[in-house]
């Protein structure tokens, strides 16, 4: 079947979703797409009286998206899927529902480089070492 296509930008996203909620539409699914070059696309599919509307928005790798569970409480699992498969940051979503941490598989549906959990541990330990070094130099500077 044919769907009604709507495109929007990230600042207008909240108001458009609120309008769909006021019309009484039902959220079917949230799809994530990897467009390459660090850009992602989110599509919100709504259903109202035998018609389907696709609401598309383009985001960057580092943007944090607001959760829609305030209006649609059943979107929790859908947002956990986005976090597990793509690594998109969503406010308040639970991670590691479908994939096990430490199994070596991380964000499998991304096309570009995959961030492995070992590299994240190295980054965390490197971040811990840096304030220690700064503390030591400041102590040396003070003394």
């Amino acid at each position, binding site marked *: 079947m044919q769907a009604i296509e709507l495109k929007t930008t990230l600042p207008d996203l909240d108001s458009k979703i609120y309008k769909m909620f006021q019309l009484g539409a039902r959220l079917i699914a949230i799809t994530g797409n990897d467009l390459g070059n660090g850009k992602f696309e989110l599509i919100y599919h709504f259903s109202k009286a035998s018609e*389907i509307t696709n609401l598309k928005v383009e985001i960057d790798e580092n943007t944090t998206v607001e959760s829609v569970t305030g209006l649609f409480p059943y979107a929790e699992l859908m947002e956990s899927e986005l976090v597990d498969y793509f690594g998109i940051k969503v406010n308040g979503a639970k991670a590691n529902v479908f994939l096990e941490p430490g199994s070596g598989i991380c964000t499998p*549906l991304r096309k570009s480089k995959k961030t492995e959990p070992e590299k994240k541990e190295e980054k965390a330990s490197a971040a811990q070492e840096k304030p220690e070094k700064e503390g030591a130099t400041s102590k040396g500077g003070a003394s």
Partner: protein
Amino acid sequence: MAASTRVSVVPLGAQHPVLPEPVALKLSLEEEKVVDVSITVGYCHRGIEKAAEMNDFKQNVFLCGRVCGICSHHHTTSYSDAIETMMKIEVPERAKLIRTIVAELERLHSHTLILGLTADAMGYENLFMQTWRDREIVMDLFEIISGNRVHYDINQIGGVRRDIGYDVVKKIEKGMDLLEERFNILAKSYLDDPTFKKRTKGVGVLSSAEAHTYGVVGPVARGSDIPEDVRASGDENYAAYKDLHFTPQVEEDGDIYSRTKVRVREVFQSIDLIRQAIGYLRDGPIAARVQGNPNGEAIARVEAPRGELFYYAKGNNTKNLERVKIRTPSFVNIPALKYMIIGEEFSAVPVIIASIDPCLSCTDR
């Protein structure tokens, strides 16, 4: 003086004899009444959406049919529908009618399965065995039509793979007469039995406003006074439903008894739809020619036995698809289980789980 109450946590763990598939529940009990539930899914994840990007778009039909064993034909129908919309292929009439007949037979198979499991969850083993014996009529018909009892693989892009001859049509008609006669006797045990009513009326209630807030689909929504059914939505390309007479079955109360009544009525409705579809069969081709590669985006949705099944596909002019997204009906029905269990007694929990028809292989994919 207020009596102090203690809360004990009981796991209805990942493996349990009443569950058809693994899901982990943690129930917080206060003297036999449930006060809190936490649900964990993810025990059956197999990475199907990633595997669908490594295959040909024609080989994906077999992969999508193995997401679930009970609603396998609806997955392949929905996937083929999405690709046919994307590539603008016209499916011939006879193929659409064969897809409808197999889909309604699958609905019979699935509803008799879950009605039997509901009876088994409350200890009524005799009714469970008799319902599953009558389900064998439908499984034998599938072996004759498609070559296998589950995972029929009868769809391909552009039509169907096998034709049903005149002798097979006669066997389907005889099977439907036999099933209707036996189910008339079984329906009395499901709907008129006083013990069954006592355990199911007023238990596991989901009111109409709650059903709208939590977005449930399928017989769970139709048992709570929401008349939504994809078969009645007027979609021109969805098999042959535009030619058949059909109204959704709706009940008001929202408890386990209403959902069981919706499913029993849908069994009789499916037998009627199969007889109508057989009357419309005429000679003709069973598949259209497929040329080229898929390009663009498309969506499709069908009415699986458990609710609304939704597919989204995106192609980029090569043999492999770029993205396949599947949203199954149990994905929204299982989180709504929390609001049906809170406030009920501990012994009613297995029957409530069996009444929403949970399919965990569909949820986790």
